[in-house]
């Protein structure tokens, strides 16, 4: 059968949901970042698919910029993560909590 837009979108949704699951579950900061990457990639697929099926370049441009942003985000995020690790010796999410709640 021909692969239509539906298939790609469903795939993107499934990947997005998997990434969401990771964001909720993971308490290790690094693995949290991985889950965020998954989210971004899923969205990229969706944009690219729509771009093809509508013969519009906007979707791919969007994906471009998302990739650029993701790259810079990783750079800064990892820098912060390293600093935090140096100070606290752990990268567990719960260690970030300084408020008493």
């Amino acid at each position, binding site marked *: 059968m021909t692969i239509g837009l539906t298939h790609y979108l469903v795939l993107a949704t499934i990947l997005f949901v998997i990434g969401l699951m990771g964001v909720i579950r993971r308490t290790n900061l690094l693995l949290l970042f991985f889950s965020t990457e998954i989210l971004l990639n899923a969205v990229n697929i969706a944009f690219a698919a729509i*771009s093809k099926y509508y013969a519009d370049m906007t979707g791919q441009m969007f994906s471009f910029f998302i990739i650029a942003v993701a790259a810079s985000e990783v750079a800064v995020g990892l820098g912060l993560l390293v600093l935090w690790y140096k100070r606290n010796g752990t990268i567990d999410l719960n260690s970030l909590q300084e408020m008493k709640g």
Partner: protein
Amino acid sequence: MEAIAFYLFSILTIVMFSIVVFSKNALYSMSALAAGMILISGFFFLLDADFLGVVQIIVYTGAVMALYAFGMMFFDTTKDVKEKFQSETITKVLWISAGVLLLCIITAPFVGGHLALDTPLSSEILDGANNPQAVGVVLFTKYLAQFELAAVMLLVAMVSGIILVGKKMDKSITLDEQLERKVETEEFDVKDNR
């Protein structure tokens, strides 16, 4: 042909990403993530977005995953990640409901058939051009401002990355002879409290 590729890629991607999310070993997660990225670029090729696919491999798999790999070296990753999962039920509920809802929303237009296709924006320049040419044309005419801004953003990210982990940034190593000697004899200690 396309269908086979699509289904193969999709199953593999889903499996890889599930490993990323559910694995207890950080190394496994990272490797799976890298594999997933490659497979995603495969999708891009399937979708005739050649340029994007290549960019995905270079930037994401190459640069970003390498960054992650270097980052992993800092942390003690031989042990299994011990994570305390709080309130598993809430997590499952949230996750399943989000998934179901998203699926419904996404597929509703197609199932219902109320799909209004807008006329695509294509111009003469893009006719007959292959993908990189098309990307170039659109990027430097229509999305020029965003391109420049993205460039500035990357610059800022680079500078901040350097500042975050650099040491003695206010002193110049090449101009100050004393500092140069000190730097050579110093030992790099991961755990120094600055």
